[in-house]
């Protein structure tokens, strides 16, 4: 008696999957599906829905003496404020290259990290920064102003008290 009836098969041939092996296939596919959906959950969790950062709106009172061409940088904020004949406007001081804070320099701003330079209205004049410094939304609030670091406005937007 032979142990393995039928045509001889090489150990290297793939084994045919029995068509009635329902349970086996079901467990295989349910595992695969469960893993897939699990992955969605795992991938979704680390993407925060609510950001923990503090409010980006703040109120400032500009110094009386602030004249055209001068800049006012409120402490602890990433904003430069200007006032000229047409009104008040705010330029972000976060470098558009890789997020360092630009410093005031001759003719505008310069970034300490990789040497980008910007003119006073935010235009890039030198270095790797890909975008001009954005202008931020300013609203007049009874003699003072509210600046929203989270909202950009088109360059040139100025506000009167």
């Amino acid at each position, binding site marked *: 008696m032979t142990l393995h009836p039928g045509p001889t098969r090489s*150990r*290297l041939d793939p084994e045919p999957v029995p068509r009635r092996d329902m349970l086996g296939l079901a467990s295989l596919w349910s595992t695969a599906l469960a893993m897939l959906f699990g992955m969605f959950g795992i991938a979704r969790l*680390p*993407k*925060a829905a609510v*950001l*923990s*950062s503090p409010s980006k709106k703040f109120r400032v009172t500009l110094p009386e003496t602030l004249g055209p061409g001068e800049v006012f940088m409120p*402490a*602890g904020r*990433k904003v430069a404020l200007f006032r000229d004949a047409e009104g008040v406007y705010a330029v972000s001081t976060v470098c558009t*290259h*890789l*997020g*360092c*804070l630009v410093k005031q320099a001759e003719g505008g701003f*310069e*970034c*300490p*990290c*990789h*040497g980008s330079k910007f003119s006073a209205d935010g235009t*890039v*004049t*030198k*270095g*790797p920064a*890909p*975008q001009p410094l954005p202008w931020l939304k300013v609203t007049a609030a009874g003699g003072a102003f509210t600046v929203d670091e989270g909202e950009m406005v088109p360059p040139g937007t100025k506000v009167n008290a």
Partner: protein
Amino acid sequence: MNPATTNTAMQEFWQNLRAAPRRIYETAFRSGKPVTDRTRSSFVFGNLFLHLHSVRTHLWSLRWSTTMGLGIASTAAFLITLVTGILLMFYYKPYPDVAYDSIKDIHFVVPTGRFMRNIHRWAANVMVVTVILHMARAFYTAAYRRPREFNWLIGLGLLITTLGLSFTGYLLPWDQLAYWAITIGANIAQSPREVTDAVGITEYFDPGGLQRLLLLGSDEVGSESLIRFYLLHVMILPLVLAALMGVHFWRIRKDGGLAKPEDADARLSGRERDTYPVFTEQPAKTYQLAAIVRGKTEVVNRGPENTVPSMPHLFYAELAVLMLTMLVCLALALVSDAPLKDIANPNIPENPAKAPWYFLGLQELVSFSAFMGGIGIPTIVIIGLGLIPYLDRERTGTGVWFGGPGGWKLVRQAVAYGLGACLAVEALVIRFGWLREWFPNVPQLIVTLINPATLITLLYGAYSVWLVKRYQSARAGALGLFTCFLCGFLVLTIIGTWFRGPNWVFYWSPSDWPRH
């Protein structure tokens, strides 16, 4: 009951109790002292931790010049960071208000704290160096070739994980250095925006913003980011590294040990006196199990001649490398303290804000274009490295230093070219500036595409293509390109480390930096 039997039971009990320590030892170490070939073998395969090694090791693998012990040194450095890192976790607190103070405590108050912290820092640096050198040795000895292609890819995974560990660890002290390096790093993750902005599709498709958000857990570097970096640093990445290391080692065994030249046995002639025939008792080697395994394993049809028992020959060599690595880390930790600057201040950037030294080459590239330097070129490099074993299918020179067409002479030329090209481009930029200084209105997309970083990459690529044609060999092209890559890495890292000062301006020496 018969008093005599009680007596023997008690006697037996005492005997067993007395014998217990010896028996515990014998059952733990079943094979006895490793003094004969047989007990040396079971010493290896009877031990969970050692059995990743094969029982016997080829003499070629034991030659100092084959590996220079660099893989083991990487492993050793990892083990050192593991132990010291767990110790640091006793005191470190990953919250922005207290993180800095807890590091200060570790540095100034905790017994041996400063020493452990220094060792951890230095071992991490040593690990980066040894991993890069280990990759270079695997490359130059053409050890990545069939059947080791996939282990080269696992190796690349190890390299990236190692760099990831260093990067995430850098934030944990929450000092100025850490804060601004991570701000820059997170914005590099966001830099695909440089392209999506230029094309005007960021609103709909913003992979950069997503990457940054996932990394920081917020829109700025804060408590969420610190927790994430901490989790990555002490949990996720070490687990990934350990898993990859396990696969890496296991595959070395399955690939038939380390790569060696076809004629390794002939090259070793003169050393046979150290070895003797293995199957002195019953020279029957059976392949019955192998008959159902596809293909042949690398050791079939080859006698175990020119091999020696791994215990003690390999293990003692490994221990020696471990000790040497430890010695280097301890010595460095004694002479140089891990840095700790002022506490992180989100309102005043460190100037210059420098990442850890092995990222300063990248930082130099990033100062030309955030996207190209931070993401584009690193991706090209990693894909290029990963493809090496699949493009070089040649056989000559495997297991030999600088093996393959061109050999050492080609590598020497490539060193000259690689250093020269990179220095020339850098000199041009430092002296004359780049597109934006010449044409102020040049569109950003042009700067992203054509900048010193892409120029260097292009010069290297062209040279490599020329080598492939000249030697009619992919290995020759790879030798040139890899050598250029190492040279570029070296030049850029040195410039970034020593020649860049405030505002990333070029200075011949830090003593020329403006005071402020």
